[in-house]
Structures are given as structure tokens and as C-alpha cells.
């Protein structure tokens, strides 16, 4: 069966344990793989997990290939999809083979073999989850990627953190008792652009998390208060404040100016690049209220995109480049909307609960991560764009989590 489009309906899937061929007697590797895969499939919004307590079959006593197990054991507990597989550990390396089965048609749909170090097992599960979505929906899933966000979980101060989409590998990027905002991944998810007041004044930084060093972007035009990094990592658009006016400048990644993009006495902020790096969406108050505009990075006249609502800001161009997500204020709180990149009718994606801010697209374009106060303190949530379904929180912890940035796929 093929699932086209998203709906409120979810498909029951059973994630059976991996059969231990060698070296995983405690099933610790199998359980890490299953736990990560199960979480990612749940976050996709397409699946409901069949409760493992209802499983009839013992994966250690049956096979994992077609003909080596009984589909009736899975049909009788109402699983429509089934994941089975094997694990073997030798010489410190893990090899996992996983397979997706269609229970009703009693056929194998897809299989993958992964090998690597034991600490790479969760990432093998994420890649398998992405492959499950690809074979079932036609589009690769977005879970082999990273989330950056701002959090006050370690105290009063806003610091920048990263984690996997499924909530593992929490890493604290900044640790300064000031203000850190607006993390944004480069295309490789090696570098994070962010704004920090760590010198007691705002400045833009590029932290290279792989090489563990960072660059501060300096300019003679004034103070940088925000920015975006281009998909190829070679360009930055910075919002620079000078004598009260904030304008956008195109720069290279060392802060050398290429051109001034806006030139008003007002406010021009929150730039977002299109996937081809040629178009920008941004917020400007040139009409008298904050509204979303687009313009070419070559310069020229901006085009106003949003007309309904008196406070529309923080645009994010979708990975396909066909639409813009943004936040629109209503009664002192925000909702996330989507609008065609050429303008048109806005579509409200969130449901009016809490304040919903800072949309960031998943690399496959099917999901948006956003910050919401719907549960009290601010958390990062995942929304399925087509169905408007708010699937889950992505962050847990004390403090407020804001400013999500969903990276591109991590690649090989």
C-alpha cells in the first residue's frame, strides 16, 4: 500500500526487536535501535506503534527474513507494517540489518544494512526511519538531522543547545551568562550562526562545531542584531542597526560586504534564504506595521507578501522554495501561517492555542518545528504541515525553549 498525503489517520506499525546474531546478548543495542526508530516513526505523524506487550512472537526465537516468521502473529495484533531485523557485534563494530514488511500483503517492502560504532546505532535507526517514510510515502523522512534551539533550562540565561530531532545527544553550545539568540544551521550542520551579547553588545557568530572554533562577524556599518546563512554557507545576510535604523546587508562568510539590500530609516530584520540562495524573505515596517517581503539577493525592489494582520514576522522559506512560513500576531500572541512565495491566501497552521513562534522547516518540507507556550512554558513542537497536526514536543526540560532551527540532512 502507498500512503499519499497526510491525514489524521495513522498506520499501525510493529517494531520487533532485532534478532541477536552475535554480541548483543543483553539486547542493549537492539533496544537503542528500537527506541530511536519507534520515536522517529511516532514523530512522523504517519504511524501508531503497536504495543510491544501484545507481541506474540519472540524475535530471538524466530527469523527476520521472509518465510522465517509467521505474518499471522502480527496480523492478529492489528499491525499493518512490521520492522524486523538482526544485529551482530564483532571487533567492536555493530552491523544491523533492518527490514520493513507489509503484513497484509505478506511481502518485504525495503531492507537496509548499516555498520559502524556502537554509538552510531541511534543514527542507523534514524536513517532507517527516513527510509521507511520514503518507501511508504514516496519522500524520504527528515529525522537524520539536528535541532538547534535556545533554552533557559540551565538557569536564567538564554543559551544555545543542539540535539537530535528525537531528543538525544543534548549539547550545550554557548555558556555565557548574557543573551544568545537565533541559532541557524548551515547546510552541512557543521556550523551554527547565532547572535550573542557575550561581549555585552550584540554580535553575530559562526560556531564551527566540528572544528570547534568560531568567527565573529564584524562590520563598520553598525551593530549586527540578526542574520541568516545561505544554503551553500558562503553568504550571510545580516540585519545591521545604525542610528536606530536596521537594514539588511549581503556579506561573505567573513563579514566582507557585498551589497546593501535594504535602505530605509525603519526596521528590516529576520532574513531567510530560499533554497537556491537567490531570494530572501524578511520582515520590514516600511508599510507602517511589520510585514513579510521578498527580494532578490541581487537587490531591487522588495515585494510585499503579507497583507492580512497587522504584525507578520519571522519568515522561513520552505525547502522547495514554494512557500513561506511566518508568524502572525493576534491578541498579543502569535500563530504560524503559510503563504505561497508569490503571495496569496495565508493558511493558518497552528490552532490558536498559546503563542506559536519561530517556524523552521524540516529538510523534507513536510514538518515545521516551532516554539509554543501552549503547554505553559515554551517548548519546541513538531507540526505536520499538510494535516496541521501538532504531533509532539521535541524538547523536554526546565526553562523555556525557543528559536528552533531544523538542519538539513546530515549526509554520509
Amino acid at each position: 500500500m502507498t500512503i499519499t498525503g497526510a491525514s489524521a489517520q495513522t498506520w499501525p506499525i510493529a517494531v520487533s526487536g532485532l534478532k541477536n546474531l552475535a554480541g548483543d546478548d543483553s539486547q542493549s543495542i537492539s533496544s537503542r535501535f528500537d527506541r530511536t526508530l519507534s520515536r522517529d516513526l511516532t514523530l512522523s505523524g504517519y504511524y501508531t506503534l503497536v504495543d510491544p506487550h501484545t507481541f506474540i512472537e519472540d524475535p530471538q526465537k524466530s527469523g527476520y527474513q521472509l518465510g522465517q516468521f509467521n505474518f499471522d502473529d502480527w496480523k492478529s495484533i492489528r499491525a499493518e507494517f512490521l520492522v524486523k531485523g538482526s544485529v551482530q557485534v564483532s571487533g567492536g563494530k555493530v552491523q544491523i540489518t533492518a527490514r520493513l514488511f507489509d503484513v497484509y500483503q505478506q511481502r518485504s517492502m525495503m531492507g537496509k544494512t548499516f555498520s559502524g560504532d556502537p554509538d552510531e546505532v541511534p543514527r542507523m535507526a534514524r536513517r532507517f526511519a527516513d527510509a521507511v517514510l520514503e518507501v511508504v510515502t514516496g519522500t524520504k523522512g527528515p529525522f537524520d538531522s539536528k535541532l538547534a534551539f535556545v533554552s533557559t533550562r540551565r538557569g536564567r540565561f538564554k543559551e544555545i543547545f543542539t540535539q537530535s530531532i528525537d531528543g538525544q545527544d543534548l549539547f550545550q553550545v554557548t555558556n555565557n551568562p548574557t543573551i544568545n539568540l537565533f541559532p541557524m544551521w548551515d547546510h552541512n550542520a557543521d556550523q551554527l550562526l547565532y547572535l550573542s551579547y557575550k561581549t555585552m553588545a550584540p554580535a553575530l557568530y559562526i560556531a564551527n562545531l566540528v572544528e570547534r572554533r568560531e568567527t565573529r562577524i564584524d562590520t563598520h556599518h553598525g551593530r549586527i542584531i540578526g542574520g541568516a546563512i545561505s544554503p551553500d554557507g558562503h553568504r550571510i545576510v545580516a540585519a545591521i542597526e545604525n542610528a536606530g535604523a536596521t537594514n539588511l546587508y549581503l556579506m561573505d562568510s567573513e563579514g566582507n560586504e557585498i551589497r546593501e539590500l535594504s535602505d530605509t530609516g525603519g526596521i528590516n530584520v529576520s532574513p531567510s534564504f530560499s533554497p537556491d540562495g537567490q531570494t530572501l524573505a524578511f520582515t520590514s515596517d516600511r508599510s507602517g506595521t511589520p510585514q513579510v517581503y521578498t527580494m532578490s539577493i541581487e537587490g531591487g525592489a522588495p515585494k510585499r507578501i503579507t497583507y492580512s494582520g497587522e504584525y507578520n514576522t519571522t519568515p522561513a522559506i520552505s525547502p522547495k522554495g514554494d512557500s513561506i512560513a511566518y508568524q502572525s500576531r493576534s491578541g498579543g500572541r502569535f500563530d504560524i501561517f503559510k503563504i505561497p512565495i508569490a503571495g496569496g491566501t495565508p493558511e493558518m497552521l497552528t490552532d490558536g492555542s498559546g503563542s506559536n513562534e519561530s517556524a523552521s522547516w524540516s529538510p523534507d518540507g513536510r514538518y515545521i518545528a516551532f516554539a509554543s507556550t501552549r503547554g505553559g512554558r515554551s517548548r519546541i513542537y513538531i507540526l505536520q504541515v499538510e494535516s496541521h497536526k501538532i504531533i509532539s514536543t521535541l524538547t523536554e526540560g526546565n526553562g523555556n525553549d525557543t528559536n528552533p532551527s531544523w538542519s538539513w540532512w546530515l549526509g554520509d
Partner: protein
Amino acid sequence: MIRIHRGRGGSVTRTAGVMRIVAAALLCCSLGAAGCSSKKAQGVDNLNGAGSQVGTETDKSTLEKNASGEGVIGGQGGPLTDIHFGYNDYTVQPQDSSILRANATWLQDHPDRNVQVEGNCDDRGSEEYNIALGAKRAQSAKDYLTTLGISPGRISTISYGKELPICHEQDESCWQQNRRDHFVVSGGQASR
């Protein structure tokens, strides 16, 4: 850390290029920098504490006070008085012009002192837009003081956006308190 499963093919291209390293190296602890006390420190805490001498010791910026645990103090935190703004507005309100005149008089009486105007917003807008709006508010006060004869070279500005509220309730009275310019005086040497 991030490197994982670089198996079959697929080399990872790096786009590092030539970078101007302004900041110090990351991970001060692992590099054994002096004065780094936390063994668990990670990330890019490299400039913490550096460049924080904006004013004199007795005239810290609100951010410095906040960072050192003294909290956010508004209103009567110094010899100059705060002014306030309308929602999403950065024009000096008529009722605040007398405050700015008094602030200008104090600065004229203390020619060896400089002032940093700190622009702030209530928490109902987006973070980045509010930083720009706070900059507008700080500039409005600077322009006003300049027209009253204070040299612009004595007046610096900074915006904290909605990041340093002095009131945390969700009501108009609180929002009004947070939409403020706060004035921090510093010693005789020009601070920036």
C-alpha cells in the same frame, strides 16, 4: 562528535574556507585556559567576561548587572530617569519630555560623565524585531538629548529588545514598564 558512519563513499565536503578568527579558541577548559573553573564546560564559552568593561565599576549596564546576578533594575537605578513608550512605537511621548530635559540638565552639570541609553520592549513581539525596535527607542532618546545640547559623542545606545524585562506579568501596566529607555551613566572616559 557529529562524525558518524562515514562508510561507503560519501566524503563530507567542508566549507570552512578562510575564516577570520576574532574569538578565542573554543572549549577553554580542554585547552587549559587559566581561570576556567568548570571542568564540565563545553560548547563555545569563549568570550565570557571579556569586553565587559563598558562603564565604571559602579555604573554597569543592565546586562552586566544581570549577568553578574544583580538582577534587572529599572527606574531609579542611577541619577537619570527612565522614559516609556507606546506599543510598537518609538517616539518620545510628550509627558516624558520633562524627564529628558532633567536628564540633559544632569549631563550638562556632569560634563565628565557619559551615558548609555538602553532601549527595551514588552514581550509581545518577535525577538529580532524587538531588538530593532529597542534600538529605535534608544536612538529617539539620544536624538532628543542631542537637540538639548548634549554632544552625541557622550551618548551611546544599545537595545536589549524584550530580553531584560523588569516586570513579568501579562498586563498593560507591566508592558508599559518594560517599554522603556534606561540611562546608565559612566565615568569620564568615553566608553565606546
